Structures are given as structure tokens and as C-alpha cells.
């Protein structure tokens, strides 16, 4: 049986960057960018990634894509023959086309979707496929806060190739994040966590004999979650932040939870799910002792201020700075090597107080001391 994958190119992603616009979402912005003489960058990057598939000759490979600039053109430029599905209004593609393409590909039963674009594109793919199949992003947009992208187009192509060859089998949950573009262009940065998608997790097939065994991403997450769940204290209100690592703890506790929201837990019972700032403060007022459990969000390593704005300065102060527990998988922390964690609560003095070092739990009884910058 032939292997099936899908390709989606957002032809206008990244177009705003070179002309000083932040993002390309919205037709008005796009028109403005084109008027400023912007040239699409994303298609070229997609070609670089797709070219890597030429090395896959073990068995038949069917690559499905949308017409013209949404993948067909790039495939042909890479010297490959696509199976073209769907319809578009060439020259006037919209985010809806991306969503539709992703849904069509999912319905066709592809093993993986390679998409080229930026954070907006990732959100569109997320809306369509969620965590149902593997995806991987080719960084083509000018805003990349999401962690679903490979480092560069070539690496993206190679990783998909290894996935097809069965050399990479592990998938890791990675954040889809985006900023509010209107606010961003006004100079205000507000990033949100929109969800998670599953991307191939590159592991070394060449084995590192002396260092012994490692754990896959899933097992690594399981270890952290198990440790935290096992060590929760009684009579303490736990403010469980957003993100998949914290969700892992909730799942281990067998408690209903929200991936993107804040949940409150007391003595192994949920007090409330998906609470906003005010809701958290109201509940906090009723308990003597509280702790926040958060994870590191996004490829840039934010503790506060990205994707968990519910945990406002007031909430943080109410709980107390000494009562914040940070958890993350080892892979996440190693990918941030030589890069500090960041806090951006919107309260300068609180940011300062949070700066310094955080002890991040990364395994069963294992933690790392990580630098935190405002």
C-alpha cells in the first residue's frame, strides 16, 4: 500500500515581514503588503522542504495537495508529481482555504500533513485536524511562536522523510500559539495558547551506547505527571495552569480538565474548570494555602504572560511567589538550552521579583535550575 501524506502551502504567509508589517492575516493587510512590494517567501521555503521527499524511494508515495500556489506549484517546482484535490481562487487564498485543505487531507487518510506558513496557518490546521494526525510546519511566516515548526525548511523535509521511513515514530504534543495581531500592530504583545498538535519527535536513531537508555516523549511526560500527582499535598488549593504537561498531571489524577484553561483542584477534587482571573481570585480568597502549577509554554519558554494570562499579577501575588511549581518534560528544557525562561506578567515589578532562578521538575524526582528573565 502506498504511503500518503498531505502538503499545504499558505502562499501569502510571511509576506508582511519583509515590509515591516507584523503578520499577514486579513485581506487588508495582505493588500497593503503587496502594495508595498512584498514578495511571497513561503512558497520557496516549501519547495526546499518538499524537495527532500525525492529521497523516498522505498515504496510508492502519494502526496496530496491543493491546487496552484497552495501546494501544486511548489510540488512541481521541487520536481515531484502531486495528486491535486480541492479548488481555490488562485491569487486570493484565505485562511478558510487552509482549513478546508486540512480537513480534506484528513478525510483522505493521510499519515501526516506538512504545512508551510506561520502561526495563523498553524491555527487553521489545528482547527481542522486537532491532534488526530501528525503534522509538521515549515517555517514560512513572519511570526512563529508555535512549537509545531521545524527549525528550517530543510530540516522539516528531512524529518518528514524519516517519519515516512519509520525511523522517527515518536510524536510529541507541541503548542500552537498566536498573538492577537490587531493588538500586536498597536505595539501590544498578547500571545495565546490555542491548542496542541502532534509533530514527529526527532530522536537519534544512532544510539548513544554509553549514556544508557532515554525515554520517549510520552514516557517522559508520564514521569513528570506521575511525580507531581503522587506528591500533591493535602488541604492545598492547586491552581493548574494551561498546557499539555499540566494536563498530564490532571489525567494522572483522573480529574476532568481543560487543556487551555485554568483548573482548580483541592484534595483531589476539581473545584472549578476553565476559570478566569476573577474566578481564580474569588476561590483563592476561600483557601488558606494555594499553589500554582504551570508549565513552560511555547518555543520561547514563557512561564507567565503567554497562553496563561488568567494567572494575572494579582493571582500570582495572592498565591505567593514561593508557591509556584514549574513542570516540563526534559526534551522541552533541553531544547531551551542556553536560553532563559521568560516572564511577562504585565507588572514590571512582579516580573523583576519572578526573575532569577526557577526549579523546574522534569522527571520523577528530577528537576533543573533554570534562569528566568523578565
Amino acid at each position, binding site marked *: 500500500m502506498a504511503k500518503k501524506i498531505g502538503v499545504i502551502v499558505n502562499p501569502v504567509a510571511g509576506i508582511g515581514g519583509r515590509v515591516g508589517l507584523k503578520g499577514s492575516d486579513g485581506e487588508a493587510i495582505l493588500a497593503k503588503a503587496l502594495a508595498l512590494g512584498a514578495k511571497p517567501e513561503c512558497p520557496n521555503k516549501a519547495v526546499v522542504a518538499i524537495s527532500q521527499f525525492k529521497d523516498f524511494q522505498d515504496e510508492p508515495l502519494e502526496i496530496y495537495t491543493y491546487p496552484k500556489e497552495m501546494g501544486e506549484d511548489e510540488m512541481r517546482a521541487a520536481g515531484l508529481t502531486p495528486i491535486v484535490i480541492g479548488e481555490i481562487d488562485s491569487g486570493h487564498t484565505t485562511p478558510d482555504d487552509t482549513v478546508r485543505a486540512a480537513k480534506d487531507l484528513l478525510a483522505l487518510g493521510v499519515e501526516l500533513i506538512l504545512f508551510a506558513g506561520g502561526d495563523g496557518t498553524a491555527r487553521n490546521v489545528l482547527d481542522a485536524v486537532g491532534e488526530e494526525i501528525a503534522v509538521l510546519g515549515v517555517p514560512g511566516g513572519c511570526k512563529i511562536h508555535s512549537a509545531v515548526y521545524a527549525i*528550517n525548511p*530543510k530540516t522539516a523535509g*528531512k524529518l518528514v522523510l524519516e517519519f515516512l521511513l*519509520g*525511523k522517527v*515514530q515518536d510524536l510529541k504534543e507541541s503548542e500552537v500559539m498566536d498573538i492577537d495581531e490587531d493588538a500586536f500592530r498597536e505595539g501590544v504583545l498578547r500571545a495565546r495558547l490555542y491548542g496542541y498538535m502532534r509533530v514527529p519527535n526527532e530522536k*537519534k*536513531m*544512532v544510539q*548513544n551506547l*554509553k*549514556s*544508557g537508555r*532515554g525515554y520517549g516523549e510520552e514516557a517522559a511526560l508520564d514521569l513528570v505527571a506521575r511525580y507531581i500527582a503522587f506528591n500533591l499535598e493535602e488541604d492545598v488549593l492547586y491552581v493548574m495552569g494551561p498546557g499539555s504537561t499540566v494536563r498530564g498531571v490532571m489525567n494522572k489524577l483522573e480529574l476532568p480538565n481543560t487543556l487551555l484553561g485554568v483548573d482548580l483542584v483541592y484534595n483531589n477534587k476539581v473545584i472549578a474548570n476553565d476559570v478566569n482571573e476573577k474566578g481564580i481570585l474569588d476561590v483563592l480568597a476561600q483557601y488558606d494555602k494555594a499553589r500554582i502549577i504551570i508549565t513552560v509554554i511555547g518555543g520561547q519558554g514563557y512561564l507567565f504572560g503567554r497562553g496563561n494570562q488568567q494567572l494575572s499579577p494579582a493571582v500570582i501575588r495572592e498565591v505567593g511567589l514561593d508557591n509556584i511549581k514549574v513542570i516540563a518534560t*526534559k*526534551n522541552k528544557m*533541553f531544547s531551551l*538550552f*542556553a536560553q532563559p525562561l521568560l516572564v511577562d506578567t504585565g507588572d514590571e515589578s512582579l516580573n523583576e521579583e519572578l526573575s*532569577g*532562578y526557577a*526549579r523546574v521538575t522534569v522527571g520523577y*524526582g*528530577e*528537576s*533543573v*535550575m*533554570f*534562569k528566568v528573565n523578565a
Partner: protein
Amino acid sequence: MSKPYVRTNFHEARWDEPMIYELSTPGTRGILVPEVEDEIVDAVGDVAAALPDSLKRSAPLLLPEVDQKHVLAHYIHLTQETMGSNLSNDLSEGTCTMKYNPRLSEAMSMNPDFAEIHPEQDDSTVQGTLEIFYKFEQIMKEVSGMDRFSFQPGGGNHAVYCASSVMRAYHASRKDDKRDTIITTIFSHPCDAAAPCTAGYNVVTLYPDEQGIPDYEGLKKAVAEIGDHLAGFFMTNPEDIGIYNPNIDKFVELVHSVGGLCYYDQANANAFLGVVRAREAGVDMCHFNVHKTFGTPHGGEGPANGAFGCREFLSKFLPVPTIEFDGEKYFRDYDRPDSFGKVRGYIGTAGVILRAYSWTMMHGAEGLRMCANISVLNNNYLEKMLLSIKGLGEAFLGNGITRQEQCRYTWEELKNDTGVGTDDINKRVGDFGIPWYWASHHPWVIPEPMTLEPCETYSKCDLEEYYLSLKLVAEEAYDNPEVVLSAPHRQASHDLANPEDLDDPEKWATTWRAFLRKHGDKYLKVK
């Protein structure tokens, strides 16, 4: 001076050797066992045959049946398909200190007065072995400044485990049972985390600062947070990236101030013989990888020895027996009520200690210092050449810190430029007679890593050959990446067709029997 060259016409032995089982012919014998004397047979009969059936072997024993000449040929072939450090430019295995292992040591280790000694013999009949142990302990004490040593641990990791056991006994003796956490650093050997973890401790890992030095501020925060739960601090110095931590005494002071013990993993001690010692750093315990620093063979991963040293106040917790001298005779002291117990049988890997004693006696204090000097000189000489290779960098490049005995390099630039990464390079270097190099311990926090340690064994010419070989492979990566990516070409074997099957319980095989059951004759060399 001899001139370097790249072994472009190298080819490793490739005997296309079948499995020993495939050489089997029923009824063949490789060696005979002494026949039982007739008088014994007459007296006792066939004792094994008289056993009850439940004790007798029921299944046929499926060992191969091969005559002696063919057993010899088979295993000589296989040894020839292996690159020992004595016959190759093995500065490759960074952190492993692949020294020359003198043949004299091997010859002496075969002496029946050493090899044919039973460990339960009376002390009076093993005075020679005990004397070697005792004298080598005196040497280790002087090299480190510690007060006592045990040679029972079977390797470096095992010594760290021994340290964890001593640490536990120490805190227990003070009824200080809260101490359940240790601190280590990310570029310390991973056993500095793993062995205490096995012993039940939680582990907190420090990252380095921008210079690549373990972050003191991070330690302060960790110590403040862990408080009286801190059992100890385990670190390698210099760390595996070749940078010496100049603040080690400050680290030690801070850990001591909250009641923790400090452990110095001296796996990388080769650079510092006679230059720095554990005592001056203020630590309480340390170990040497005897098989690395003191010139004994690594045996393809052991037997090795992790000489564990400590200060006087911890010596009562050492594993039993210790080796003592009463002025007249040497003896094994088992009467140590505070000892935590044992980590390995008897007194340790005596063969390693014998060779290390001999090697050390040949060098003396001055020679050890020469090892240190030449190892750091070699490393800097090699580093200068290697950093001129396009595509190659090193961890914390340009931080202004002179590397000591080894470097962790990175092929990140080459990978970005060409798609050829460290694993690919590593598969190719063997085609030029260069042994597989040590990339890095896990995790790879430095991308596309390569760790090289050109200890004093390697000549100037070796260093230059190594540089020229790597340069050639890097150039291939730019000009003709396919030749690198399709390596190995001239080595004893090739890439596995389906390496992922090693992770598949339906396909993996750690024994020949499992291989036959799972794959039948599909892959047999001899069908």
C-alpha cells in the same frame, strides 16, 4: 618529525564471519575435560546419572560444537573486526581517556602468582596482592589529598554509587533522615545523577552560565530551596566540555554550610595530576576512573575500577574489607561496624589495580605531571587545528576560556549548511581508520556534538592525522555529501537495514535462539 597523512586507502578487516553456531558440526570437540580416575569411578559411579530426574537437564544443550582451530580462527577474525585503542588513533573517545595500555602490564597480570589466587585464601598467602592494593592506596591518597580509598567499585559509575551509599550512612549516623536530594550539573557525567537516583535520591541539575561554567547563582537558589533536604553535591571537574570550574571551592563552601557533602567525580583527572587535587577543592569524597587515568585497558567496557576516596570522617563508612598494614603484614579488615556494606564481591578488580600500580610506578610524580601537561597541550594543539575546519565549532566558542584536557565540538554549522550531522560524520571517519568518536553523553544539549580527548598517548603526528581526516570528511560533506551519508564503506560492517526493529519486541533478538525463532532462516548467512 614524522609527518601526518590521511589513511585514504584504509580498509578494516571484514571476514564476513558467520555466527559461531553456524560453524557447528555435531560431535565435534574444542577441548577435553580431565578424565575421572578409574578409582573414583569405581568408588562413586556416575553421580550425575543418579540424580533425580527433576534435577537433570531435560532439554538438549544447544551450544555450538566446533573444533579448537576453528574456534580460534572465528574469534581472531572477530577481534580483527574491532578497533582497540592500542592499535588506532583513539583520541576519539572523549571523556574516556584512551591511553596506551602497556603490554608489560598484560604479561605481569598473567603471572600465576597473581592470576591463580583465590580471594578466600588466608591473608598470609595473598600478601603480594594486598601489598599492591595497599601501596596503590597510598599513591591515590597523595594524588588526591584524600585520607582513605576503597578499590571495590567496579567502575566510575559504581564509585558514584558507593559515594551515595557512604553519604546515606553518614547522614543516617547523624539521625539526619530528611536529606533526600542531591545537586549535580548538566555537564557532569550522567552517572553523577543516575547513581544517586538509584540510591533513592531526588536530583536537581544546574545549568551553566553564559560562559559554560556551572551557575553559582543557580546553586544558591537551589540550596536555599532544598535547605536541610540537601544530602550532597556531585560534580565532575573539569566538566565534560573541558572547562574547569574556577569556583568549585565556593560551591563546596555553600553546600557544606547547609550540611551537605561534596563529591568530586574525577573521571577527567588526567589533566590535573599534580596540578590540582580534591583536597584543595575542599570536597569530602572523590573517585578516579583508574582504567582511564592510570593506563589500564578498558576491556571493551570493563573490567574497570572506580577508586573511591574520602576524608577521615567518612572512612568508617567505607565498604568492607579495607586493606590494612600492621607494620609487618597486610590484612583485610572486615571488622568495621559502621561500614555500609559492600558494592562488589571481595576486594575489587585486582587486575586493574595491578596494572595501574605498575603504570604509576613507571611514571612517578614527575611522570604523572608530564601526562597532565602533555594532555592539555595536545588538546589545545588539536583544538586550534580543528576550529579552522569549515562547519566545525565548539561549545561556548569564544568565551575566552582555555580548554583543559578535552573539548566538546559541534557540527551544527555543517549540519545547517549541508544536512550532514555528527552521526553521519562519525560513520564516515571509520573509513579512514579513525575509531568511532564520542559525541556526547545524553542529552545532547550541545547540538551535533563531538567530544575528543587527545591524552598524552597521542603524538603530534596523530593529532595532525586526526585533523586532516576530519577536514577531509567535512569537505566531503560540502562537496559530495552522499559519500558521507552512505558511509560506512570500508569498515567491518554496514548500517542495519532496519534499525528500528531493535525496538520491536517481535523482531529484536539478544540471543541466537530468539533470532532463529523470530526470523527463521530468512537472514541466515549460511542457509
